């Protein structure tokens, strides 16, 4: 499509287009080098002259500061985030990275920018908040080796954060399924390690192992699906695949391949039945990381699903819209119900949030199903396209604001975790008395998750439901408005997904409110009545989340526009 500027790798405009990623890349290098800067010398071969080359040896005061990696990572991610926001300033440039053989590798557009916003935003907050999480064994030259080792872990942790961000943004940018997959794996590997990074506890390593094993199997299945797709189409370029799907999308081979690919992404978004490792992983991982898993990582999976289902496999293949419609509908229904029902009885706040995250995955799948209920092929014009854009906008909006309240909730738990434990409901006891700000913030996050107005969670859920309903009634809406005597039986069945969503929201109220009750009106656990661990960074992050949650509830217009641009760009700009 016109308006897309093609750029060769490392060619003109490459830096401008991939500025956020390059910032991260630079930060990554800095993060590797800077903590190693010291009074290290190197002997010039053959001589006894030792020349200072500043690597290794006794570190400088600044570089030996264990907080340094955290600051570097935060600033890097923050800069990338800022850069992303700035790029919205005057319309998003659409820039494709194209190899000289004409293969499109990446595409920078509104869609990718918004997702970068999600990734970098979440990661910045998590990185900033983690400053208070990771143990710091003092500062200065007189540290034991163990202490030094501990402090060195800081760098590792934030390096993984950055690679995670890099991988995720590659996913957002990718125009080739395999590129997407590589980005996905990069991010996944980072998260595997980050989950296991909490290795001081039994649960941490176990969580890492489970997440890794199940994740690997899922991505193995996904990769095999990719190979089948490649076998079928001879390319993994989205545009090529899409063209092929239009021609013979009902072949068993691509369908089955697509199913396998879905498994890979399904795991990332923790859709049932691929979600089993998720509650364990969330429960075992440190809370900021769990927050990343529930927000950024999930958004990444959603990108995969969107690309795969909407760009590649959406073209008309059966009478009922698209072939995968029923499949995804069932998946979404099962996922949201499963998540909510499981969360009902969960007494571990983190597991509860994990299950709630599963439920949210179900809502998002419902949204995607709704898009699929439309004939995507004809969607380039008219109301149909609008409907799709509406749902997509809602979905993207949901993902953006989800960062605020889901991650925020995890960050509050993170403070409790530093206080000792956050794996029991009772560990939240009396939070509102111990620190009213955190209690109130947590309560707002909870009811936002449940979808109570006027919070961001309500708007996002409302938008998703609106999108689904619009799709469901859109086709016959005109007839109904004209007075045609049509009922629910005539409305597309995805309407019932919206119904399931609202019922599930109501069910979810049970466990979200329970948290509020515990925080406000139960006594703290034995011996935990004192003040919570200090640390302004994490509280600042919570505050930021809170502000976004509140603000997006009442003034979501601007963000909606951005999301709409993103949604449209997915629709119009894929080639």
């Amino acid at each position, binding site marked *: 499509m016109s308006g897309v500027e093609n750029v060769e790798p490392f060619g003109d405009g490459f830096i401008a287009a991939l500025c956020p990623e390059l910032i991260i890349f630079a930060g990554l290098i800095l993060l590797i080098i800077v903590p190693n800067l010291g009074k290290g010398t190197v002997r010039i071969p053959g001589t006894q002259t030792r020349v200072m080359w500043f690597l290794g040896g006794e570190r400088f005061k600044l570089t030996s500061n264990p907080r340094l990696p955290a600051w570097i990572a935060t600033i890097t991610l923050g800069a990338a985030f800022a850069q992303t926001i700035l790029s919205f300033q005057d319309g998003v440039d659409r820039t494709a990275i194209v190899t000289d053989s004409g293969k499109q590798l990446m595409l920078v557009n509104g869609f990718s920018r918004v997702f970068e916003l999600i990734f970098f935003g979440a990661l910045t907050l998590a990185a900033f908040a983690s400053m208070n999480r990771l143990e710091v064994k003092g500062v200065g030259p007189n540290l034991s080796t163990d202490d030094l080792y501990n402090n060195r872990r800081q760098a590792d942790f934030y390096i993984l954060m950055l690679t995670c961000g890099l991988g995720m943004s590659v996913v957002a940018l990718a125009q080739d399924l395999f590129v997407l997959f590589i980005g996905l794996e990069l991010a996944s590997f980072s998260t595997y390690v980050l989950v296991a990074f909490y290795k001081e506890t039994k649960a941490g390593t176990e969580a890492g192992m489970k997440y890794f094993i199940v994740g690997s199997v899922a991505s193995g299945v996904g990769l095999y699906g990719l190979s089948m797709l490649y076998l079928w189409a001879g390319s993994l370029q989205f545009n090529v695949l899409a063209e092929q799907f239009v021609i013979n999308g009902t072949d068993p081979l691509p369908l089955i391949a697509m199913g396998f690919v879905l498994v890979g992404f399904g795991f990332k978004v923790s859709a049932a039945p691929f979600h089993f490792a998720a509650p364990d992983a969330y429960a075992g991982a440190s809370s900021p990381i769990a927050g990343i898993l529930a927000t950024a990582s999930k958004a990444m999976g959603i990108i995969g699903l969107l690309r795969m289902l909407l760009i590649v496999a959406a073209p008309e293949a059966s009478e009922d819209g698209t072939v995968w419609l029923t499949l995804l509908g069932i998946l979404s229904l099962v996922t949201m119900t499963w998540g909510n029902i499981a969360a009902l009885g969960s007494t571990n706040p983190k597991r509860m949030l994990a299950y709630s995250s599963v439920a949210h995955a179900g809502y998002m799948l419902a949204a995607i199903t709704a898009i699929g209920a439309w004939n995507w092929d004809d969607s380039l014009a008219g*109301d149909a396209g*609008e409907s799709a*854009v*509406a749902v997509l*906008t809602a979905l993207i909006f949901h993902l953006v604001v989800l960062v605020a309240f889901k991650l925020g909730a995890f960050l509050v738990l993170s403070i409790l975790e530093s206080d000792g434990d956050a794996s029991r409901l009772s560990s939240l006891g009396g939070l*509102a008395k111990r620190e*009213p*700000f955190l209690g*109130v913030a947590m309560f707002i996050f909870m*009811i936002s998750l*449940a*979808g*109570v*107005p*006027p919070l961001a969670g*309500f708007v996002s859920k*409302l*938008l998703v*439901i*609106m999108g689904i*309903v*619009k799709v469901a*009634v*859109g086709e016959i*809406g*005109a007839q*109904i*408005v004209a*007075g*045609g*005597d*049509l*009922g*629910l039986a005539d409305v597309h069945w995805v*309407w019932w997904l*919206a*119904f399931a969503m*609202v*019922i599930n*929201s*109501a069910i979810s*109220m*049970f466990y979200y*409110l*329970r948290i*509020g*009750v515990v925080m*406000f*009106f139960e006594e703290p656990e034995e011996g935990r009545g004192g003040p919570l661990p200090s640390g302004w960074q994490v509280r600042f992050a919570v505050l930021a989340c809170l502000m976004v949650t509140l603000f997006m509830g009442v003034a*979501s*217009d601007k963000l*909606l*526009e951005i999301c*709409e641009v993103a949604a449209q760009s997915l629709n119009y700009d894929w080639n």
Partner: protein
Amino acid sequence: MTDWISIPLVAFPLIASMVLLAFVSNGTERMRERLVAPIRMACLVFSLVMLTITTGMFFQYFGDVSWMNIAFNDYEYRTTYTWIESLGINWSVGLDALSFPMVWLTTFLLPVTIIATWNEKSGATYFPLLLMMGGALIGVFVSLDLFMFYVFWELTLIPMFFLILKWGGKDRKYASQKFFIYTFTASVVMLLGLITLYFLQDPYSLPSAGTMTGRSFSIPELIDSARASNVGDNWYLGAQMQKILFVMLMIGFLVKLPAVPFHTWLPDAHVQAPTGGSMLLAGVMLKMGAYGMFRLPISLFPHALYHFQLALMIIGMVSLVWGAIVCLGQTNLKKMVAYSSVSHMGVILIGIATMQPMGWAAALFMMFAHGIISPMLFAVCGAFKHHYHSMEIGAMRGMAKHSPWLATSMMFAWMASLGLPLLAGFVAEIMMLIALWHMISLDGWSIWWMVGPALVLALTAAYYLWSMQRTIFEGGEKGQPPANMVGHPIPDISNSEKFAMLIMAFFTILFGIMPWIGLDMMDDWTKQIFDGLIIFVGKGGA
């Protein structure tokens, strides 16, 4: 026209109370104690300002307003600001004869509640919560935008949740969550109905349509288009869709009302709620359900309304009778009063189901009258609990002797609630009866429909008198105070409580003797809405 609603009646109470809450809850215990008096006074003063504004509105002080001649679906003090343009969401407020009495009632009850519960513990957070509650409630009534309506609709839950949770009785955790979840469940179903309704518009046909969706959330515009398309052989959205949407919206409203069998959250919430919470809950919050019915399903879906007339009548009758019968079996004073609310809300439903303008006016007036009487009932219950540390009927007898004020207030409130003539409740009851019988004879219904109201008129008297016999009467010198009261002096209600009771009693009498003050505009409104229906009835919709 100056916007007299948005800031002073909705935004300021909400924001100010939130700021106060944030400020206070982060302070120390000592600071909180010191701040009780100024915060209470500030809340009272502001609520009085709100009352002044609404009263001024009534007396047409703020602008050229005539409550009597507003065309149907036209609103006074109408103000609209764009909120979320892409979705067609506006901050749109206005008042008509349906909403104004409710708004006035809310502003009236706020200071009364504050005065009645002047010495509530943890006042520094309690009074701002009341104010917040008031702002949210008014928000519901003034909203002329579905989105805004729903936002405020749910927003009312939060302060009430905290009021019950923090100041409630022994089972407050259970009660507050049940209250929240029960009504939330119903209202999300309603939300889905609202959204479905939203998308059943011609894209970009309405003036305030969203730039992205092409649809409008504007209630007046929707009602206009409904009115426009309910002509000829057409029904707005077709008969089936009307019924579906009607049911979905009604689920939300019926639970809020509440109607049997969706009422069980109410006794729990009321028994556990603090006095102030109960007063606002019974006084205004229940009316949200009835208000919503009038504002949306009744205005929009006449065909469905006729179709479900029988169902509404049955639900109303069952609520009426069942509430009264269960009342008689209660031993807890507050629970009894709560069930009496269920019973009275049945009157509203029956009034609606009569499909008579008079029945609707009765329902509207019942909303209003019950909004003054039931807070008084709960204020009495609260004082009872406060002084005698028990809610059991018979725990304290012979109140007439040692607590004449409380006894008098109780008797007054009880009598008002059982529909004593010249008190506000009677007006609605007799109008409902007349309208019901008129419908029965006009439409050839079975006269056995009269049995329910007749039975309840007697039963209501029975349970109220029964409880008075065991509280106000008997006892005296020989009466046994509850075990925990033995040896303590038995105080009468405090001056602030007396004052609040007197105010409520005054208005109960005022609206009993001169119901036309409020009824005239309600009558006007029901006539206007009914004018549209007659065309409809004419084409055989019933």
